């Protein structure tokens, strides 16, 4: 079955992983900007990272017939450094114009601190002002419930924000209901130990239905499994769920959510919208690469 992984960190994976994913049916993916495993020393480090996300990774994916999309932001962990975070936020608008950039993400909370909250707030304001979609990271383990409630509180302060254009990721049994009831999309991350198993994800599909529900691997530099979405597909089949339901969750739903971004298109489609974006910020540093790739699935 063809599927899309809506949250995977391919900068951390080797090229062989692209080939494996392609063999297993992966035809598209989106890669949010995240913490690299170490704190970066300057905004220029982020500029280079954003160029990797918008230029190099799409080309690596394309060579295996996979369509690569991305999200740009300052992540929750490095948001603790407010000065650096604001420098990085200043870079975001120019990258939002590039093909394949779906919006601002993955913003969120990590340890639920005041600084993280301030920078989360400022990035949501930016997204609202630029009419961008948002992808949100929720904390791990014992911080998750509190952090998810705090995130929902902050989002509620933006009444003009279209909730159907916001994805709250890494939901589990104790956070999924609040996210869906508030009208947001919810992402279930299949991740060893700290997040959700394929079997528990299937449980949540059965309890809450497929509406506004996504499933992803979040494959990254830590213990993780980039082929976790195919594991979910197998778990759904073993439970006896129809192929149409499985396809809705692993392909149709990501397309429905992504399609709200002006930079999303399937092969052969024209760009969906013409939202206004500020002109690029003049800078001495190199401009983001011109992604002129032909996207094919």
């Amino acid at each position, binding site marked *: 079955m063809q599927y899309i992984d809506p949250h995977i960190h391919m900068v951390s994976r080797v090229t062989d992983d692209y080939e494996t994913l392609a063999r297993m049916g992966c035809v598209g993916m989106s890669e949010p900007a995240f913490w690299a495993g170490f704190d970066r020393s300057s905004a220029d480090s982020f500029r280079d990272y954003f160029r990797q996300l918008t230029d190099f990774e799409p080309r690596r994916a394309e060579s295996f017939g996979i369509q690569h999309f991305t999200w740009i932001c300052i992540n929750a962990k490095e948001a603790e450094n407010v000065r650096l975070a604001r420098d990085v936020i200043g870079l975001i608008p120019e990258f939002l114009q590039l093909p394949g950039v779906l919006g601002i993400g993955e913003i969120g909370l990590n340890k*639920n601190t*005041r600084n993280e*909250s*301030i920078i989360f*707030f400022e990035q949501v*304001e930016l997204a609202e002002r630029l009419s961008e979609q948002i992808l949100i990271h929720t904390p791990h*383990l*014992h*911080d*998750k*419930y*509190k952090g998810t*409630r*705090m995130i929902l*509180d902050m989002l509620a*302060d*933006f009444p003009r924000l279209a909730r159907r254009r916001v994805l709250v990721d890494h939901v*589990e*049994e*104790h956070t999924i209901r609040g996210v869906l009831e508030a009208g947001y999309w919810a992402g279930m991350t299949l991740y060893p130990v700290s997040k959700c198993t394929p079997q*528990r994800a299937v*449980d949540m*599909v*059965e*309890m*809450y*239905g*497929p509406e506004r529900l996504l499933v992803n691997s979040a494959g990254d530099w830590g213990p993780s499994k980039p082929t976790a979405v195919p594991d979910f597909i197998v778990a759904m089949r*073993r*439970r*006896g*769920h129809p192929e149409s339901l499985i396809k809705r969750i692993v392909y149709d739903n990501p397309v429905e959510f992504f399609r709200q971004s002006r930079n999303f298109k399937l092969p052969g489609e024209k760009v969906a919208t013409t939202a206004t974006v500020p002109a690029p910020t003049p800078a001495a540093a190199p401009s983001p690469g011109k992604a002129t790739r032909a996207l094919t699935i």
Partner: protein
Amino acid sequence: MSNPLEASEVLYREFPEIRAWLLQIGAALDRMERGIGSVADDPRRQSIDEALRLLLASGADRAEQIQLLFSLRYDPNWKQEFALPARH
């Protein structure tokens, strides 16, 4: 939407894994008993006992209840504590 499988089929499929997980928990608790010192007063050890009690309860939300047990408390007044700027 519900689980399309019969409860008996779920038990048949998952019994070996559940047995293995229970053994893992039992062996880990035994290991603590045999270790030097005591963790009886450690809140984490006490939360394990509470989780085991939740498993024995009836209902179909044990996973959610265990998640909440292992979660930090949420204070709805957190914004005042952080003195975040108001937005309207």
